[in-house]
């Protein structure tokens, strides 16, 4: 097997995730896209761990844990926003409106 087949796969996932982050309006969906990105990263970590020793795996684990935390908090925020303005439409978060 080649390195690249995994790396390219993760690259694709990553890109898709980015696309999602840019395009999706619904907060939950944005979070999901972020998950995609994180997983892409994890794949890379693991791939290189095959060269580099288990450190890569350890970090992948960390990432997973942190991702979990992030989702937790993220969803909580989304929930809060929803409660405040009855919508999770990020577009309507015009706090930074110019």
């Amino acid at each position: 097997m080649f390195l690249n087949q995994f790396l390219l796969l993760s690259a694709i996932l990553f890109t898709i995730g980015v696309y999602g982050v840019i395009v999706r309006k619904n907060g939950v969906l944005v979070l999901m896209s972020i998950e995609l990105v994180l997983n892409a990263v994890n794949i890379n970590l693991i791939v290189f761990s095959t060269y580099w020793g288990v450190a890569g795996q350890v970090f992948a684990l960390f990432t997973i844990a942190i991702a979990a935390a992030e989702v937790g908090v993220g969803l909580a925020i989304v929930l809060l926003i929803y409660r405040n303005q009855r919508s999770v439409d990020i577009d309507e978060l015009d706090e930074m409106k110019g």
Partner: protein
Amino acid sequence: MNSAALIIAEVVPLVTPETTFDAPANVVFAVQAVVMIFAALRVVTTKNVVHAALWLVVVLGGVGLNYILLQAEFVAVTQFLVYLGAVIVLFLFGVMLTRAPLGVSDDLDNNQKKIGIGVGVALLAVLSYALIETFGRSELTFAAYEGVAGPNTNGRTQAVSDAIFGQYLIPFEMLSLLLLAALIGAIVLARRD
């Protein structure tokens, strides 16, 4: 050789491609890769929030599969447990609690599709160019595992645990703190008052 290559050159001993092509692994990979990509695309394109969550399940599962192919069983297991177990459930709760339209709704994307695509493609192009430039057809050898890995795979898991509780103990503890903080934070945020 480009400079991205320089970075890697320091850490990756490039391997001469004497091909040890094992069919099953590759076949499996090919299949799940296709599935994953499709699923991932659906995640970001579907008009139904719940479906998106479910497609995400597929992707995450695929990722887990990848880990196995890469002989990182422990991580794979964690992936299944944490993601498929916890995260997805979380997501579904989120969807439910925020009363997201359970059915099809056309209002999930904003008006930046074009840009999104543009950026995505550009990004992909650059990344893949760099990757191909750098690794070309270099083979995947599990060099790092040789030392620790006997025929049984416990060795690797053991190595991982050694690493976590040895070298990376402090980060690990930090992590636990972080999780705690996240927990409290989530509660505080979501608490209705």
